[in-house]
């Protein structure tokens, strides 16, 4: 019997030995000794545009309106391991060449280059780096040839069904045509940096080269980590896009790039954002007076033309219109003749000239709700705008009056409307 017991004990001992000892049971959560934590590449989980409160997601921006971007960053080593966050809010003039998911190949000189498991890439999310862990020693980043096919679960829907190829020896970086310098028409840059554990942020969006105006972009507030031991932080920045941030449907993007102490980085992009059209008209002339005029006067009669100082500011194609209406007197009504002929008793006509173009001012009734189209060639302006003032030259801006030969004596009041519209 004793032998039987010994044999059974031996058998169970053998049985236990055959079990996978590594994960035999739910395991502990503590260890003693000193440890070196593996360096982890930070991850930009998401970058998104919101309204100023950070509550409502936005897919478009209106100039001179406050918005907030949120950048959700994870560093498994802790947020304190990060060194900087760079946000680029930019207009992309051409077709975007999506960089696709980022690829980081790590290895050492002795272990050689590791191969990206392409078969697995279909399950990665854009913005998350494909990470190959180091087998020891200092991690290094390598460029390589890799083709990644995005799967249908990607949140960046515009990236669907695309195949991304990273050229040999080309760094996995930003869009090839992403602006590299800020200017108020195309690109704003926001940078967070950490010094002695304290984060601070600055922004840059100067007027474009040659623009005598001042930027109308603003960087109002931001958040930064105060607990550097956390693994995740949502950076936010409240900003106002300027007047001449180029208008475009689905032409703007926000790129977030986070970098850590080992100079590893991660990038993520928003889907395409629309910048709404912005048009401004600034009239420094607020009243007009012709002085000594007589019935029957023509557009060429002194004191015509009268100067009207007007500035147009637009972030895209725009058109200039001028309209008026009948002028009212104490006793009589002066009727606007939009043909320029001032034909008919007590009829008057107006001729507007802006730049190289002229037109007879009409009422806003009729097929065109803005009156007479003077010019429809306006394009994106500087912050300083397109300025028209004076009676000669390319900056000419005048208004001339013509009266019918029979014109009732009275004091007339009326309005001349200068309009700017998106085209």
């Amino acid at each position, binding site marked *: 019997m004793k032998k039987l017991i010994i044999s*059974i004990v031996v*058998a169970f001992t*053998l*049985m236990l030995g055959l079990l*996978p*000892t*590594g*994960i*035999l*049971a*739910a*395991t502990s*959560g503590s260890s003693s*000794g000193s*440890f070196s*934590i*593996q360096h*982890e590449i930070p991850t930009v989980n998401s970058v998104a545009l919101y309204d100023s409160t950070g509550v409502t*997601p936005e*897919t478009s921006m*209106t100039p*001179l*309106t406050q918005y907030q971007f949120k950048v*959700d960053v*994870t560093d*498994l080593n802790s947020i304190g391991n990060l060194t900087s966050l760079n946000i680029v809010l930019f207009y992309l003039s051409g077709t975007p060449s999506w960089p696709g998911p980022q690829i980081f190949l790590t290895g050492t000189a002795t272990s050689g280059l590791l191969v990206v*498991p392409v078969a697995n890439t279909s399950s*990665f999310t854009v913005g998350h780096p494909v*990470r190959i*862990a180091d*087998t020891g020693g200092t991690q290094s980043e390598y460029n390589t040839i890799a083709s990644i096919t995005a799967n249908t*679960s990607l949140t960046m829907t515009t990236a669907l069904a695309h195949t991304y190829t990273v050229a040999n020896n080309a760094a996995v970086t930003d869009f090839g045509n992403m602006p590299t310098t800020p200017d108020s028409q195309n690109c704003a840059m926001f940078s967070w940096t950490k010094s002695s554990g304290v984060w601070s942020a600055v922004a840059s969006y100067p007027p474009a080269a040659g623009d005598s105006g001042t930027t109308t972009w603003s960087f109002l507030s931001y958040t930064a980590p105060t607990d550097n031991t*956390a*693994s*995740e932080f949502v950076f936010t920045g409240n900003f106002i896009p300027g007047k001449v941030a180029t208008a475009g449907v689905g032409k703007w993007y926000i790129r977030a790039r986070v970098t850590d102490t080992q100079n590893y980085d991660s990038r993520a992009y928003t889907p395409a954002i*629309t910048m*709404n059209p912005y*048009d*401004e*008209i*600034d*009239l420094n*002339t*607020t009243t*007009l*007076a012709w002085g000594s005029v007589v019935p029957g006067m023509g557009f060429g009669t002194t004191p015509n033309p009268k100067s*009207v100082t007007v500035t147009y500011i637009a972030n895209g194609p725009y058109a200039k219109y001028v309209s008026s209406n009948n002028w009212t007197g104490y006793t009589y009504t002066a009727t606007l003749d939009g043909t320029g002929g001032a034909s008919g008793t007590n009829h008057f006509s107006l001729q507007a000239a802006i730049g190289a173009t002229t037109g007879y001012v009409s009422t806003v009734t009729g097929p065109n*709700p*803005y009156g007479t189209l003077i010019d429809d060639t306006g394009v994106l302006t500087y912050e300083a705008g397109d300025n028209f003032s004076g009676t000669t030259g390319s900056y000419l801006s005048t208004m001339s009056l013509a009266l019918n030969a029979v*014109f009732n*004596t*009275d004091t007339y009041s*009326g*309005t001349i*409307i*200068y*309009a*700017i*519209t*998106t085209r």
Partner: protein
Amino acid sequence: MNWHFRLKSVAVRFVTLSLLLWLVGILVPAAVLAQGGLAFSGSFHNQDFVIPQGASVNGPGIYVVVFNNGSETINIRMTSQAPPGVTISLSDQQFTLAPGAQQQVLIGLAVAVDAVPGDYDLNVAAQSYTEGVSGIQIAGAAGQTAKLTVTGESAKVTLQALSPDGQPVVAAVHLYRVENGQNMEVAYSQTGTLQATVVPGSYTSASYIGGQQVAEQSFILAVNDNKTVDLSGATVYFASFGVVPNYSKDNGELAFMQVVYTVKNLYQQVDTGEVLLQISFNGTPQAPFTLVTLSPLAVGSSGLNYNYIPTGGWVDGSYDFQLQLNVDGKLYTSSTLQHLDVSGGKVATVETTSPTASSSVSAASGGKGMSPYLFGGIIAVVVVAGILVFWFRRRNK
């Protein structure tokens, strides 16, 4: 022409001249009317409305904004122009803007049942004006034009925001018509449900809670369709999840894996949220165990971590880590799956895969292959049986 008529004509001209000169005298240029700096923006111009007869379109994404960038307060009058049978509604018709102020004006469109199908232009404009001023004033105006197509065909759709267990949730629900890759807002609701009559075509819809997108669905509506679309998504989820190898400084070998994760609750506090860690070794899942129980699980983010060490130490092979979240005792959501290969006491590779991939791992482990436990047990039974046979044979001799 007799002398009498000539005299009358000259007199009229002279009087007119005199009055116009007088008019010049009373026009005081110094009266700045602040018409400069009127600006106009918004999404209206970018809209390409396609609306069936008898339907309407509105939403917070359809608007214009009027700015007063001048130095004086100005009065603004909004105007609009639409074809017969089409009504443009503006949230504000007339208002005053202080210097530096802006006013957003929401725009809605309604197409009458008898509106004539076709393509039209719609105009919305803002004009500054001044009251009680005589003389010839110069005023500013700005506007945008949008395209409208009225159609005779329509479809109906109902959107409803749901939790993963099918319960209605209060959420912002947006319906967009997809046109040339762009989303054109069609309808909007903050109650979690939305009903709309729209033109047939491609649509996308999304629900949001606290600014976070919870669910998204794209679909196609055909003529006379009456479709219900469920926007089902998790309002509690793992915002981040990863495992970080930690090596012993004594021997350089893997000591423990730090499991780092963030639980985010968007919607409402729940009584109990339990996070479990599920580990699979070489494809064989082990019994999940609890990392933390949050009672209650409040709205917001909770960043947590846990150091994992296998009882018997690290063994070469592949490990899969995945978190599960039970809400009030029921499985609610899972994290991505972290896969790592351990070789020679070090982590060779770490990969992240989606929950879909993780579920396939679970399926494989549940129905395919042989469990190491089972394999070890079978061998043990064989060994024990062999010993017993050997013992009975010796006893019978």
